[in-house]
């Protein structure tokens, strides 16, 4: 320090508010998103537990909640779906881990638009609070499902929760769309413009590729949902009739709308809704590819094919929305087109699966907890994915649509596989985020119970659907052929209770390790990517002004002749 620099001229350290709350630092924003998602998944899981208990033991009195009334069930269902799809699966893989690690893995100093990072988080937080508020307004939360089909969602008189509760849902999701689009812009520009020297696109870790493609999907899909939610809010509050036709009678009272089409909502919603499931799973696929490579000590098998498959999935994901609408009243000829395109998207998904297997093949596997969850991801992705080609056929979908078969399918591939990728990423990046290791034994136990539990819950659920059990039934007593399926429902509930209870292992491990875990050191996993160059936990300045210079690809493991079995991306270039 030169003699001319005195204490008075040094910048003062940022206040608590600026450091931890209103911060533009992408790493802190990433953590903020992570903890918001954690809150959302806890609420969403409790809701699903209440749902499962109500279906099989309708008279049970829950501590603090009392008896779950039939009208509550559909509100629980709606909020469960909304919280999990938006605030968990569309938040933590992308905005949680992506905000934190995209700039680091690219060797960038910061995101392209740091203020947008902050704005995105706080709008998402506001959106979350508005959604939760729906439980507490007169009529309670909406009962129309996370899909909110009008006219049910458009006419306040059509059920409890369809008044204020639905308006709040729409406001919340509209804000979420806005935040997502902001954040996606940030990700895209950062990836295209802020890679460090030597970080060619084809040297990016696959996590960066999936964050990038998911961001493009978010930009295009969420903007459509934003428009749809505004249109529905207008139908509900401003006298428009985008989605409501004339002549309706609800609760004995005439509905004063005309000229609208309920199918228009479905087209708009699913045009968003299908890319949405790829937004939810692509980062998970990226982290799986990444971790299978790290812990097999082998390059990703078919890196270029993986990039191609990622782009193909992203592109095709926009062309298949009608497979949610085969029996909706849509022109049956459209069924052919959507069915064929849906089959097409199975191909890059299969290619990815083969490449994951290829990555493990001949690997020297390190059985860490992140590796276990990545293997679990591959298994669950295969299982959930393979029922896709069944549902893609309209002739079969006639029977299976809106039954528990569909519920089993998307829970396996989105909820379970997606969740396993989130767990893998958490156990993997925890050392970098908090400077400590999570406990390995607890992690292994958490994996085993969750893996077997996931299958125990959702495999039998296929049979419920095959037997014709429709979705979203709050009681089993209304239809005779459904009532006889109660034993199967009970099995699913018991499996769910055990699996959910085991998640306390994760929570305990997580919070205890934050303060008492073994110190991690800079690169405990011996991984090649740039974030492992920095100290753990990552200092606020990140790379600062010393941008790394990249000479190697992201998966240089077990390079023949090298002195160790991994080569950092910014290691000296090999002659």
């Amino acid at each position, binding site marked *: 320090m030169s003699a001319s620099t005195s204490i008075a001229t040094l910048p003062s350290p940022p206040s608590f508010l600026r450091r931890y709350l209103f911060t533009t630092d992408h790493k802190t924003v990433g953590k903020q998103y992570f903890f918001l998602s954690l809150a959302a998944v806890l609420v969403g899981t409790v809701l699903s537990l209440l749902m499962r208990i109500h279906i099989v033991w309708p008279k049970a009195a829950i501590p603090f909640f009392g008896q779950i009334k039939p009208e509550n069930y559909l509100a629980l269902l709606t909020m469960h779906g909304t919280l999990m799809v938006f605030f968990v699966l569309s938040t933590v893989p992308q905005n949680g881990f992506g905000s934190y690690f995209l700039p680091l893995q690219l060797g960038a100093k910061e995101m392209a638009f740091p203020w947008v990072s902050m704005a995105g988080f706080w709008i998402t937080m506001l959106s979350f609070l508005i959604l939760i508020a729906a439980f507490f307004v007169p009529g309670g939360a909406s009962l129309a499902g996370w899909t909110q*089909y009008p006219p049910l969602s458009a006419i306040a008189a059509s059920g409890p929760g369809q008044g204020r509760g639905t308006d709040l849902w729409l406001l919340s999701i509209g804000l979420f769309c806005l935040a997502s689009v902001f954040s996606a812009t940030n990700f895209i520009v950062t990836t295209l413009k802020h890679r460090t020297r030597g970080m060619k696109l084809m040297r990016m870790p696959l996590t960066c590729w999936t964050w990038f493609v998911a961001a493009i999907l978010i930009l295009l899909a969420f903007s459509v949902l934003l428009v749809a939610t505004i249109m529905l809010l207008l139908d509900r509050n401003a006298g428009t009739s985008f989605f409501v036709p004339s002549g309706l009678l609800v609760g004995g009272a005439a509905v004063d709308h005309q000229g609208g089409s*309920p199918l228009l909502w479905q087209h708009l919603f699913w045009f968003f809704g299908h890319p949405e499931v790829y937004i939810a799973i692509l980062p998970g696929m990226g982290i799986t590819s990444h971790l299978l490579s790290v812990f097999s000590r082998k390059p990703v098998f078919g890196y270029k094919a993986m990039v191609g498959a990622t782009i193909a999935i992203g592109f095709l994901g926009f062309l298949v929305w009608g497979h949610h609408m085969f029996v909706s009243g849509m022109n049956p000829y459209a069924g052919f087109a959507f069915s064929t395109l849906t089959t097409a998207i199975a191909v890059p998904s299969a*290619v990815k699966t083969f490449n994951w297997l290829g990555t493990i093949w001949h690997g020297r596997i390190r059985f860490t907890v992140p590796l276990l969850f990545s293997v679990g991801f591959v298994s669950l992705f295969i299982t959930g994915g393979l029922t896709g080609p069944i549902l893609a056929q309209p002739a079969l979908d006639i029977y299976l649509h809106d039954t528990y078969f569909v519920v089993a399918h998307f829970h396996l591939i989105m909820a379970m596989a997606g969740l396993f990728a989130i767990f893998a990423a958490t156990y993997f990046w925890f050392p970098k985020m908090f400077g400590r290791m999570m406990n390995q034994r607890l992690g292994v136990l958490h994996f085993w119970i969750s893996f*077997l539990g996931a299958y125990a819950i959702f495999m039998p659920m296929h049979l419920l659907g095959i037997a*014709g059990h429709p979705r979203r039934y709050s009681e089993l*007593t209304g239809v005779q052929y459904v009532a006889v399926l109660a034993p199967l429902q009970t099995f699913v509930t018991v499996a769910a209770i055990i699996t959910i209870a085991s998640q306390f292992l994760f929570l305990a491990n997580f919070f205890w390790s934050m303060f008492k875990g073994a110190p991690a050191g800079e690169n405990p996993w011996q991984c090649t990517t740039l974030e492992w160059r920095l100290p753990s936990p990552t200092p606020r300045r990140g790379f600062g002004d010393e941008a790394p210079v990249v000479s190697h690809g992201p998966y240089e493991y077990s390079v023949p002749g090298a002195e160790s079995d991994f080569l950092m991306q910014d290691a000296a270039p090999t002659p």
Partner: protein
Amino acid sequence: MAISKITQLQNYSITKSKMALALLLSLLLITTASVYLFAAHPWWLPAGVSLHAAAIDHQFLAALWLLGALFIAAQFVLGLLILRSRFNRVAGVSRGSWPLEITWTVLITGLFFWFNISGDRLWSQIQMRQPEDNSVQVEVTGVQFQWYFRYPGNDGTLGHTNAQRFAKPEEGNPLGVDPNDPAGKDDIVSASLVVPVGHDIDLTLRANDVIHGLFIPAMRLKQDAVPGMSIHTHFRPLQIGTYEIACSQLCGMGHYRMRATARVVSEEEFKQWLKSQSKVY
């Protein structure tokens, strides 16, 4: 430092074998249990009694065989690769193989598209078909939380409806059949779907408040009823009996109990039934 690292590595390779074996065994357990569940199927499809049921069921079973085989193979390969890895002292260095990529891409594309196209044929058979001339016309209307089935009566024409103006459920006119329309005078409104065996039944689906879904599992029939639309679907029942109808599209609080009954009867009984039903007006 160096000593503890060696111990770490030793501990590591001891548990490595156990973990690899555990993963393979658990994958085998999951695969076996799943296959057994689907094979023994303690709960399964109800007997299919419509003309298309057999073809749909056949396609579904073919799907289960094909995808079941892929499921078993994939999980097994996953477990095996992990187990074999415990023998590897140094990892392989293959970064990929374009011949392999192309081969498996072509194979999976062929397999999935072949299978999908066979399903297309079935969809075409079911949907792209005009109803027979002597098909029985029934209009199905879903309201919260009740199904109504309207038959045109002897004039073969359904009367106009206007639910907002004329619906009086307590007076036996829940659908709002226009009292001034002569065609509606002989309409029959029933809470059950009664149909003659062996005839094409041409359904026109409507809804008066929110979207409902007509689901008759035994007939392998499902079609949403959308307000503002008149949607046609059809089926041909092949067996006399009573079959449940459920609502398959979330329509509000009573969604779970919006049930009805489809009664398939002989032609004579059907004619008797029509005669015996009271008319709307």
